């Protein structure tokens, strides 16, 4: 039987948190649905979309912020699957710096990975929810080792992710306050995005693809131990099985929400995505209003 | 090649570097085929410049150079040149340096190699053929460059003080060898030297240069040329004196 090739443009290198994808040679979830899976690494959600647009991949594994930007630039894209409906971003400040809520961030210096990173975009969501803008804080690029400057006091707080915080804690990050973006505006972390043209032309394949992806996600939820073991060989950063397990469990949590528990893995809350777009518009990060109801298509998500 | 084609003529050549005082003025020379023409003149008078113009390396600001009937407008392979400095390639052995003029135009044969070795033997450094220039003494280097100019047997030879760095005995040998070779091949030679006796011994004509002009030209008529003794022939000594006298009233800047 001939396999249909579907290539995912990832936002990252093949890291342990996407073990469900990387485990394909071992588990064959996609092959079982007649799909030959490809993966091209990226350097962020934006690169996932450009890699897809360039033809190097078919499906982008990307974040809503990048989706908004691409839509704003006039690309005709659709979101077909909600990979991580839970927002995993947060802001971390050592206890005693007087930062406990988002509003406390006013006037503070906050570290982000880089100017095009998820930490920055999601920090902006957070600030927007409490009526602050980029001008009310000082955003400082710190690189991926962002806890160093927090510990050293070079920044007051740092934007991070759940996995980043987890690893930080393993490495002796002291007592910290954590402000979760999810608590104020739970914009999904990542979604599958395709061009509308590809969507129209390849519905059957995409349907099988999403079926397979959901199987893999479900497997990782059900068998985190096994996934952690596979990550040791299949991922580029998974040398430590115990750490893999911690990360995989965090991703499993973020893959599930109220909505997915009722409707099934991959389903959207369109309203939250719309709120996120509106927040971006309000902050001038995009120039035109977006109608996410037109962008989110749910007909391919398996029941 | 006809005799006519092997004549070398400089017609009223002027030369100046841009923005500088003229170095050559109205310099004319005429060499028939087989002539051995010596050029003498005080240091800095323009001999090297004249030779480079005759070779096509420099372009005269006025006048022209002819090879036979054609005007020279660039370096010609018919002309062999021995530079005032040896100009050897450091990264090639002595033998390869001598073979360079051949190897630039065709692949080197065993005959060429043998010929180059013969020339090296002639100039007395065949034992050093596999050495590199930086391992040679000053005089040895200049002899290599001499062999290099001879290896293609060019119909014209321009030589800029080729024997200045060699000892008296080697020099006499080389003079005799050069005369023998150029006569056998009918080579037309323009030869710069500071040694007046050498000029008289070698040349059929000697021209005297002074401050960029050719002020005197003598035909040399010393009898029984081929014998080494002709150097001490009274006529030779007389002509030496004559040339020396012609050189003396230079617009010298040397204060004694």
């Amino acid at each position: 039987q001939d396999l249909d090739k579907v290539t995912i443009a990832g936002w990252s290198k093949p890291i342990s948190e996407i073990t469900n994808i990387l485990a394909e040679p071992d588990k064959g979830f996609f092959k079982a649905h007649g799909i030959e899976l490809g993966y091209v690494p990226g350097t962020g959600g934006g690169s996932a979309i450009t890699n897809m647009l360039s033809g190097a991949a078919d499906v982008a594994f990307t974040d809503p912020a990048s989706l908004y930007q691409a839509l704003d630039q006039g690309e005709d894209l659709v979101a077909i699957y909600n990979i991580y409906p839970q927002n995993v971003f947060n802001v971390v400040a050592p206890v005693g710096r007087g930062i406990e809520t988002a509003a406390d961030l006013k006037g503070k210096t906050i570290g982000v990975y880089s100017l095009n990173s998820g930490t920055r975009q999601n920090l902006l969501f957070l600030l927007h929810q409490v009526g602050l803008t980029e001008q009310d804080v000082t955003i400082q690029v710190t690189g991926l080792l962002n806890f160093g400057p927090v510990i050293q006091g070079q920044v007051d707080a740092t934007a991070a992710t759940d996995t980043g915080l987890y690893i930080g804690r393993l490495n002796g990050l002291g007592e910290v306050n954590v402000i979760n973006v999810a608590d104020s505006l739970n914009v999904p972390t990542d979604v599958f995005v395709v061009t509308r043209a590809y969507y129209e032309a390849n519905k059957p394949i995409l349907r099988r693809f999403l079926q397979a992806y959901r199987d893999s996600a479900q497997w990782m939820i059900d068998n985190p131990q096994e996934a952690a073991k596979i990550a040791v060989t299949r991922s580029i950063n998974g040398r430590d099985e115990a750490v893999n397990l911690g990360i995989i469990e965090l991703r499993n949590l973020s893959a599930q929400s109220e909505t997915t528990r009722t409707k099934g893995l991959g389903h959207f809350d369109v309203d939250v995505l719309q709120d996120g777009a509106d927040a971006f518009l309000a902050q001038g990060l995009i120039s035109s209003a977006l109608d996410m109801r037109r962008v989110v298509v749910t007909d391919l998500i398996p029941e | 090649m006809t005799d006519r084609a092997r004549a070398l003529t400089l017609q009223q050549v002027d030369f100046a570097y841009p923005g500088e005082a003229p170095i050559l003025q109205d310099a004319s020379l005429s060499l028939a085929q087989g002539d051995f023409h010596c050029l003498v003149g005080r240091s800095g008078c323009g001999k090297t410049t004249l030779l480079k113009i005759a070779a096509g390396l420099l372009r005269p600001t006025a006048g022209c150079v002819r090879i036979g009937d054609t005007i020279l407008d660039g370096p010609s392979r018919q002309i062999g040149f021995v530079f005032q400095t040896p100009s050897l390639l450091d990264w090639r052995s002595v033998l390869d340096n001598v073979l360079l003029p051949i190897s630039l135009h065709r692949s080197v044969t065993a005959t060429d190699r043998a010929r180059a070795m013969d020339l090296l033997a002639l100039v007395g450094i065949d034992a050093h053929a596999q050495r590199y220039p930086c391992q040679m003494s000053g005089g040895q280097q200049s002899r290599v460059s001499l062999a290099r100019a001879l290896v293609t047997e060019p119909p014209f030879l321009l030589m800029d003080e080729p024997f200045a760095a060699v000892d008296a005995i080697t020099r006499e040998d080389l003079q005799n060898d050069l005369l023998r070779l150029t006569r056998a091949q009918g080579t037309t030679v323009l030869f710069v030297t500071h040694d007046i006796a050498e000029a008289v011994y070698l040349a059929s004509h000697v021209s005297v240069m002074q401050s960029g002009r050719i002020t005197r030209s003598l035909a040399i008529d010393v009898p029984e040329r081929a014998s080494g003794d002709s150097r001490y022939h009274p006529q030779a000594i007389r002509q030496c004196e004559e040339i020396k006298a012609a050189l003396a009233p230079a617009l010298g800047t040397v204060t004694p």
Partner: protein
Amino acid sequence: MTAARLASIGLFLGLGLIWEIWVTISGVSSLLVPAPSAVLAVLWQGLTDGFLWPHIRVTFAETLLGFALGSIIGFAFGVLLSEVDVLRRVLWPYILASQVVPKLALGPIFIVWFGFGLTSIVIITALICFFPLLENTVTGLRSAPADQRDLFRMLGASRLQTLLRLKIPAGLPVILAGVRVSVVLAIVGAVVGEFISGGQGLGASIIAAQGMMDTTLMFALFIVITVMGMLFYQLTILAERWLLRRRQTGDEI
């Protein structure tokens, strides 16, 4: 000269035109490749409304300071390592390490050591640009001919004098080739430094534009950086011409 300049400008316009036409007919996404007309429009706007100038200023300053530091280091180490042979043998692994270890990954450590902002970026720039000058200095200092070295020994020149009066002047053309490479790498260094820790400057703006998926602005910034590179390069060429004004060059042939 004018012909070459004309050809250069013609080529630029020609390439731009072909590109514009290709973008128009192929309908390639502006996220991937923007239309030159759009790029120029953004560039013009950025220059006239003043948005670009502060960034240009910052990157310019970083490049200049980083190059100054880097060329001092490169030249000084080049001299040191070629004069003191033991030093060369002992230090070269560290020098190589300083080159091959990716600055992007070292960024956080720089920040810990030197803090945010100018200092870090200047040091990264220096670190990126010093190496070509070092290597060319080492090679250049070897280029004085043996007879001139003998002369200096005869004249009782000290090591320092031989260096200053003979080896450096004799090696100048080679050293200046290293400077040409270094000055270009200094711009690369400043941009990379801004990737790591800058909040301002052309490099930081590029990353920000990337985050906004504003490829058009990104290309406009590329043009600005290239023009800045041309400026720096041209300055070194002028300096070189002045320094070597007395030398024979191979240009006649």
